[in-house]
């Protein structure tokens, strides 16, 4: 019984924090925070941050980190966007349109997967430390994005494509549904499959896991591919929602996704973290984000606050780890 409570304690604490934050934001802007338009706006924004956070979380649980999720999304988004624009022409039949949009989505996802594989090879096979490896791919991808777009935007997509990010299905935004779907799938993967099992073990102790017969390299490769895939879905939604894609988009999401992962119980050193925790973390951050927006905070002020929260989140995570540890006796 006690153990059960312990496992759910983190989630309960997070849930409590969520309620506190939501109430706080509501108190600060009573008319606007819990209003229909605001809730709807949050429902549209959560999927992008949410998918990026899941992409970051899954890499962090292995004990690594994926700093390239945003730039990966941009490059794949640009590629898909360019393809879409080149395929689409006036007077296209519905079937052809669907095919074009599907092709674009496949390209986005495909390139994300390839980038993920690159990261996985560098980090899993070449054994480059994750920070350095993903930093390097991030640098390269950023440069590629600027090179291809020359700093400009690719914009103006057909309605069929815009539907992904803006469409509503049964009263709920499609993007939100997609996010939940992937969250559930990821949770199943982490909790019920050997792959997920191995991810946690590698994150806790890579050597002992290797000595137990697990193929670490392959697991890491797969995991970074997964991370890439998730950021590819985020890219699709983002490009669709903004109806454009530009090299400078989304840079704020990097810090935020790390913040969300940490809030959600993912440990920077690896081996810990749950999808449920990350989801609540996303909701907490979104409350803050929307709340700040309503209160009229500038993007810069918000950025500064995220920075502060990042440090605070680490302090909390550190204190949490300290109190659970059994002190060594001899």
């Amino acid at each position: 019984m006690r153990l059960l409570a312990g496992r759910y304690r983190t989630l309960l604490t997070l849930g409590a924090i969520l309620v506190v934050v939501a109430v706080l934001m509501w108190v600060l802007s009573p008319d606007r925070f819990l209003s229909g338009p605001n809730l709807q706006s949050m429902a549209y924004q959560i999927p992008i941050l949410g998918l990026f956070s899941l992409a970051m979380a899954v890499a962090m649980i292995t004990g690594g980190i994926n700093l390239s999720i945003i730039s990966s999304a941009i490059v794949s988004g640009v590629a898909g966007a360019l393809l879409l624009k080149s395929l689409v022409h006036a007077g296209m039949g519905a079937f052809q349109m669907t095919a074009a949009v599907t092709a674009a989505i496949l390209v986005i996802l495909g390139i994300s997967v390839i980038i993920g594989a690159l990261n996985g090879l560098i980090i899993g096979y070449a054994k480059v430390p994750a920070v350095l490896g993903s930093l390097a791919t991030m640098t390269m991808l950023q440069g590629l994005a600027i090179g291809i777009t020359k700093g400009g935007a690719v914009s103006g997509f057909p309605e069929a494509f815009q539907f992904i990010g803006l469409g509503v299905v049964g009263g709920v935004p499609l993007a939100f549904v997609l996010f939940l779907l992937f969250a559930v799938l990821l949770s199943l993967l982490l909790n019920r499959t050997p792959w997920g099992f191995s991810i946690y073990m590698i994150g806790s102790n890579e050597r002992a896991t290797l000595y137990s017969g697990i193929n670490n390299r392959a697991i890491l490769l797969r995991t970074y591919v997964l991370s890439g895939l998730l950021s590819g879905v985020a890219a699709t939604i983002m490009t669709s929602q903004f109806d454009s894609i530009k090299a400078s988009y989304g840079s704020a999401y990097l810090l935020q996704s790390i913040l969300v992962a940490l809030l959600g119980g993912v440990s920077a050193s690896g081996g810990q973290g749950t999808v449920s925790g990350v989801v609540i973390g996303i909701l907490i951050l979104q409350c803050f984000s929307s709340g700040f927006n309503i209160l009229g905070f500038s993007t810069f002020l918000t950025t500064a606050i995220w920075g502060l929260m990042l440090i605070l989140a680490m302090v909390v995570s550190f204190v949490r780890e300290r109190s659970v540890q059994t002190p060594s006796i001899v």
Partner: protein
Amino acid sequence: MRIASILKRHELYLIVIIALLSVLITSINHHFATLENLLDMLKLSSFTGVLAVGVLVVLLSGGIDLSFTAIATVAMYLMGSYILTFGGNLLVAILIVAVTGIVLGAINGVIVHKLEIPAIIVTLGTLSIFYGALMVIAQGRDIYNLPQWFRDFAKLNLVSWRNVGGSTYGISIFLVIWAVVLAVTWALLRYASVGRGVFAIGGSPLAASRAGYRIGRIQLFVYCYIGMLSGIASMIHVGLVDQIAPHSIVGKELVVIAAVVLGGASLSGGKGSVLGTFLGVFLFAVIGNGLTLTRVTSYWQDAVTGIVLLLSILIAAFRERRREKSLVRVNVEEGKAKA
């Protein structure tokens, strides 16, 4: 002498690559191989170069700093605002940027040491805090009208020549500053106790604390040092671009870190050299200059930087693995086995 030969290996690779690239570029555009071009390249690299020296010291100690671009931005902004409001001279300008850098760096150092949070996350946070706070206060305005004495200073050369077209070129004052920073840092790392302390805590923090090194103090020193150098670098930047634009520096962190890593510094600490860092920055300068001279648009330069960084870490990783595999663990007895 053996240390020297081991060290030289990585730097040697860099020198060879630089030489090969130079030959290649010169064959396409022989303007590359002129003194004027060389001095110009070095002058333009001095901003990144000074930042890179700061990053080297942080990496050697086993830490990392992502906030140095924000520190540089705050420093130059404070300097600019002060000079325009109250007037001043060179000494005042240097003092302001240096002190700002030290203070902001100290914040990083204290948080990293006292709160025991990984430096990458702390500095990711302070990057946002410093930059965000500055932008909120400064409202993102640019500063254009720099005083004449500053502009004159920026044009200063140690030694000058005149070229065919009639314009002057020479060893810029910024290059001199960079050279001084390189020399001082080298001496610091080699001959100052605190410098050896940096290597020690980068090599083994546990051994360092047991030996009696004051880790907190050395870390504080390191983050203040990069802070100070970031401030000085920002002054170079202002001199080079002749304006203070708050968003012109932030975002370049990766390029600087890339150059330092290319120069042989290890992200886990304890390994790296001033010479290597200089060569790393110089190599990137050669690549950038080469791309320009061979008429590749500037839009692709960042991509090339990224690819070079990627290749260099892959090569470093492979070399490390080969070294590990060839480590002799057992002095095996040769000859025939006994029956």
